[in-house]
C-alpha cells in the first residue's frame, strides 16, 4: 500500500498521435496530434478532472492510461510500475485495479446478459470469490453499495433507467476491487436530477473505499463537486493544472477563463454577456503554430504565434501561457 502523499497514477510526457494514411500505399501523410506532452499525477483517494472541448485529447489520455491506445512516448506509472512497458500478462493483472466507466451505459452493458452475470464477469476473470454463492453475495453487496435493490440482479439492462444503468456499470467496475477508476464522461448523458445522484454516489464511494478517479469531462461545472484537482486540455496539451478551488476562483490560462465564462449561468443577473472567445476549435491534425490557442486567444501577443509556451509554475499549479511566466525568471 502506498501512503497518502505518494501518487497512485503518474503520467509523464505522454504522447499519443494517430497516423493519417492516404493513397494506395497507405502512406502516413500526417498525424492527429491527440495528446502531446501530457503529465499529471493522482494521489490515492483523490480525483483529478481532465477537462476540455471536443478534440482536446482528454479521452485519448484516458484510453492511453488503460493501454487501449499505443502512446509513442511517455510513461504511465500505476502503483509504481510503468504500464506501457509491461508484458500482456502483467498488464492484465494491473488492469484489475484500473477500471473505466463510460458515458453510455447501454453501449457498455450486454443487453442479453442478466446484470448479476455482468457484474460477476470480472470476478471470474480475476478469481475473486471462492464459489458461486460467494460471488452472488458479493453482487448483492455491490448493488446495495450503488443503491440498487439486490433483488433486481436477475433482470436485464433494458429494465433499468439510464441512471440505474450507470449505477450497474459502477458496480461492475467495483467488483474487481479497483484502486483507480477512469470516468469518461460518466455523467454527461444523464438528466440533471440523476446527474446529481451519480455525482454524490461517486463521492461517497471514494470516501468509503479510498478510490481515486480520473474524471474526464467537457463540463467544467460538474467537476467542481468531485475533483480535488483539475487539468484543462486544449488541442492535445494540458494548458492549466491546479487545485479545483484555485482554478475556479483564479483561472490563470486565457483558455480556462474562456471555458469558465462560456458556461451559461443560471444567475439572472448574468445574462447577455459577450461570448468569451470566437471561432471553433481548430482541427488537431493541423494545430496552429506557436501556442495552439493563439488563434482564439483574446490576449495573444506576437510571440504566441511563433513560439509554443512551456508549462510555467504558478501559485497553485501550472499554466502553459507566456503571461504566466514570472517576471525576470525566464528559462
Amino acid at each position, binding site marked *: 500500500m502506498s501512503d497518502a502523499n505518494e501518487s497512485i497514477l503518474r503520467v509523464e510526457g505522454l504522447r499519443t498521435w494517430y497516423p493519417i494514411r492516404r493513397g494506395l500505399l497507405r502512406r502516413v501523410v500526417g498525424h492527429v496530434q491527440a495528446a502531446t506532452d501530457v503529465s499529471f499525477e493522482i494521489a490515492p483517494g483523490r480525483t483529478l478532472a481532465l477537462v476540455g472541448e471536443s478534440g482536446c485529447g482528454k479521452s485519448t489520455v484516458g484510453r492511453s492510461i488503460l493501454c487501449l491506445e499505443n502512446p509513442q512516448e511517455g510513461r504511465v506509472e500505476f502503483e509504481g510500475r510503468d504500464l506501457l512497458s509491461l508484458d500482456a500478462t502483467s498488464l492484465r493483472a494491473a488492469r484489475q485495479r484500473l477500471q473505466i466507466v463510460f458515458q453510455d451505459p447501454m453501449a457498455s452493458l450486454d443487453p442479453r446478459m442478466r446484470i448479476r452475470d455482468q457484474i460477476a464477469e470480472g470476478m471470474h476473470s480475476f478469481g475473486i470469490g471462492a464459489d458461486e454463492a460467494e460471488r452472488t453475495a458479493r453482487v448483492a453487496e455491490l448493488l446495495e453499495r450503488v443503491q440498487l435493490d439486490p433483488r433486481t440482479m436477475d433482470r436485464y439492462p433494458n429494465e433499468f433507467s*439510464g441512471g*440505474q444503468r450507470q449505477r450497474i456499470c459502477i458496480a461492475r467496475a467495483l467488483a474487481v476491487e479497483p484502486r483507480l477508476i477512469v470516468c469518461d464522461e460518466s455523467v454527461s448523458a444523464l438528466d440533471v*436530477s440523476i446527474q446529481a*445522484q451519480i455525482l*454524490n454516489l461517486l463521492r461517497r464511494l471514494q470516501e468509503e473505499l479510498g478510490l481515486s478517479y480520473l474524471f474526464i469531462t467537457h463540463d*467544467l461545472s460538474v467537476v467542481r463537486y468531485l475533483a480535488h484537482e483539475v487539468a484543462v486540455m486544449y488541442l492535445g496539451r494540458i494548458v492549466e493544472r491546479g487545485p479545483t478551488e484555485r482554478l475556479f476562483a483564479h483561472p490563470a490560462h486565457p483558455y480556462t477563463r474562456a471555458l469558465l465564462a462560456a458556461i451559461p449561468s*443560471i444567475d439572472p443577473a448574468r*445574462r*447577455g454577456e459577450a461570448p468569451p472567445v470566437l471561432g471553433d476549435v481548430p482541427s488537431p491534425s493541423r494545430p496552429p503554430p506557436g501556442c495552439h490557442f493563439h488563434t482564439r486567444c483574446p490576449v495573444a501577443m506576437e510571440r504566441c504565434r511563433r513560439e509554443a509556451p512551456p508549462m510555467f509554475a504558478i501559485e497553485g499549479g501550472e499554466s502553459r501561457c507566456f503571461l504566466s511566466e514570472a517576471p525576470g525568471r525566464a528559462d
Partner: protein
Amino acid sequence: MSALLEVRDLRTVFPGEGGPTPVVDGVSFDLDRGEVLALVGESGSGKSMTAFSILRLVPKPGRVVAGSVRLGGEDLLGLSVTAMRRVRGRRISMIFQEPMTCLNPVVRVGEQVVEAIRLHEDVSRADARDRTRALFAEVGIPDPEARLDAYPHQLSGGLKQRVMIAMALSTRPEMLIADEPTTALDVTVQAQILTLLRELQQSRGTAILLITHDLGIVNELADRVAVMYAGRLVEIAPRVPLLTEPLHPYTQGLLRSMPARGRPGEPLPEIPGVVPRASEWPRGCRFSTRCPVRFEPCAETYPAESHPAAGRRVFCHDVERRLPSEGAR
C-alpha cells in the same frame, strides 16, 4: 392582442401495452409575438413531443388525440396536409440539435438555402443566392461568398449550426422552434450561438419556442419558462422569478441539484428516485412519487391550476393550499 401561438389541452399518445400512453397530457400555453418561451424538462418530459405535436410531425404510431393549436387564430390541427406543409417552413421554422441530420452532405450549403427559399417563394436563383449571401453574413459566417460553395463536411460544427439558422430564417418565419439548438456544440461555440440567437431574435422580432434541458440556456435566451415533467406542465413563469423563486417542488429540486448552485465539498441536493415510466404514472400529480412536500391529495388527484402571481401558473396542491383563497381561480 391575442397570442401568436395558442396551445390548448394538447394531448398526444403512443400505443402502449396497457392502452394508449400519453406523452403530452393536457398541455396549454401561449407564445406571444416576438417572445421567447422555453419549454424545459428532462428526458421523457414531453417537451420535444409538444413541439412535434405543434408541427404535426409526431412520429408514427404516435398521434395528437385532443386539444387545439392555433397560429394567428388558425387551427393547425385542422389544416390539410398541403396547407400544413406551407405553414412549416414558411410561417414556422425549425432548428435542431444536430445540424448534420438536416443538411444534405452532397449539396453545397448555399445551394441548400437557395432551394429552401425557392421552395416557398417565387424568386429567381440569382436573387435567392443574393439573399442567402446576406443571410450568411447576418448569422456571422465569415467570408460568406466563399462559404456558399462549401459542402457541409468542410464546415465546423458552429458554422453548420449557423447555416441551419440562416436556412431557418430564410423564409422570414413568424416563429422558430429551436430544439436543443446548442446541445451538440462545444461550450465556447455554444456561447457564440446563444449570443447570435439572441441578437437575431431582437433584430427580427421572431418568436421562439426554445426546447431545452439546460436552465443556463433558459437564462440566456428566454423571456418566459414552462417547466414540464412526465408529460404535464408543472409551472410557467417569467424567467427571473422562475430562476430566483421557483414555486413547484420539481422546479425547486431541479435548480438545487445543478452543480453551479451548490457548495463545493458538500453533497449536491438530489431529487430522489427516477422519473416513473408512463405506465407507472400516479393518478394524481406525476411528481408525487418523488416530491418532498407531498400530502394526502397529491397521489390521487391532479392539482388544479393556481395563479400565485401575475403571469405565473403552477400545478401543485401544496402551492394551492398555501395561497390565500382568492388567489386560486
